[in-house]
């Protein structure tokens, strides 16, 4: 029994040494996309265009001001 365990440990150890001993190869990798990527810039421009009329549309107050003339006539 002890022999089997001993041989197993030796075999695994050998496997471990072979695995670690192999030289890692250098593979060119794709650089990660930067924050300033052109695709992100398009996205920002779209959301900026979406917000163009933000704070500018207020139909309720427009109507209040449109009523100014008729209020003057009522008094």
């Amino acid at each position, binding site marked *: 029994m002890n022999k089997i365990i001993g041989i197993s*440990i030796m075999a695994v150890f050998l496997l471990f040494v*072979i695995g670690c001993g192999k030289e890692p190869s250098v*593979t060119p990798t794709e650089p990660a996309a930067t924050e300033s990527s052109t695709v992100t810039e398009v996205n920002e421009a779209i959301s900026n265009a979406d917000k163009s009329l933000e704070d*500018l549309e207020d139909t309720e107050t427009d109507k*209040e*001001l449109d009523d100014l003339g008729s209020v003057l006539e009522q008094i």
Partner: protein
Amino acid sequence: MKKIVILVLLMFVFSIIVLAENEVKQIKTEEAGNAVAITAVKEQTRAEITEQLKERENLKEVSQEGLDKIAQLKEQNREKIQELKQEQVERLTAVKEERLAKIARNLNQKNIEKISSLDQELIEKLASLDRTRLKEYAELSDEELKAKLEKINVKKVSVEKAFKERTVAKEKVELAKQNLNQAKEEYKQAKEQLKEQKKLLLGAEDDAKKFEYLREYLTSAANTIINRLNIVKEKINENENIDEVAASEMVADIDSRIKELEENKEKISTLTALDELKEHGKVIAEQWREIKLKNSIKETEMLRANVQEVFKRSEHLEARLEKVLADMEEKGIPTEIIDAKVDSFSSKIDEARNLFKQSQEKFNEAKNLVNVTMKIAEMNQVKEAQELAQQANKKLKEAHAILVDLMENVKNAGLAKDVEEPETGEVEIVEEVSENE
């Protein structure tokens, strides 16, 4: 005993992982090696193709550079070019290689023959267009095609100025944002007061009360309009898509209207009779009518300027994607999937472009009418122009979704940096002169 068995198992698993990882790395190294070998074979093949092209009677006098460009094309696309007359080939191959590839990929033999008979300047203009317009224009008659190309303006601009009309200093943007927040707060208060004063005024029983409440009501109305103008002004101040001259003119117009309203507020405080106040109220009502019209124009200008930036960026990206496709073809990488997605991207931008053109026409018409008649009815047309510009932006958003998906394929092909890397120097911008301009 158990501990030893667990330890052995753990070491075994770890060894397998390390071995597997190294195996993958080895495969990748082999793949990289294969790619180099493939490239060498491709270059050899391309050189052979160039030699074969030289032997053709119609291509004997064509420059080496021109022949190299043809040799880089896919076989079925190359065939469309190599059959042309020498002068046609010379004109076509004078365009950038990715543009020649775009023409050969997207047009049929008949249309390639037609466009290669155009003047060099017109061929350059046509080649600079996106693929959707390229296909559409190539179907036109010679006269229609020339007329369309007359309206195309290709200009080279520095990257910094390519997409924005001006640069607003950070401090100015920050100040505009602060002023905008303040104007929003004051606007909120003024409009609440306006409503309250209106209620009090309409409920007033005698002239003395009517006079008191009318003065407050008119002051609140003037304050509401002033703050509304300030909001528009600060939005213009921070907007980099409106050029300096237009922005200055718009801000000057707003400032002069605010000045008039401030003077009217002063006047209100000096009046002593109810009838005088009423008369003065009419002046403020008239001022509001004009301001409302002018504001709608300024708002549309801002919206359209912002959508225009999205167009410029999207069109430029499409041109960069064409370059990626040409590179892929040159390297012998299959292009079908990316090509089909660029097609969808380009069509979506074209749909947006058509909506934006309609918006432009509607807006120009409305703007002229407003300046002449100053009638509130023209506002409907301005609103329609706004809606069309918003619809165009929605289409551009859909195009962007296609782009995001497309970029995954470009990344997988290892060419993402060709699209994503920030550019330096000059870039080409294609402009279509509007009918009304």
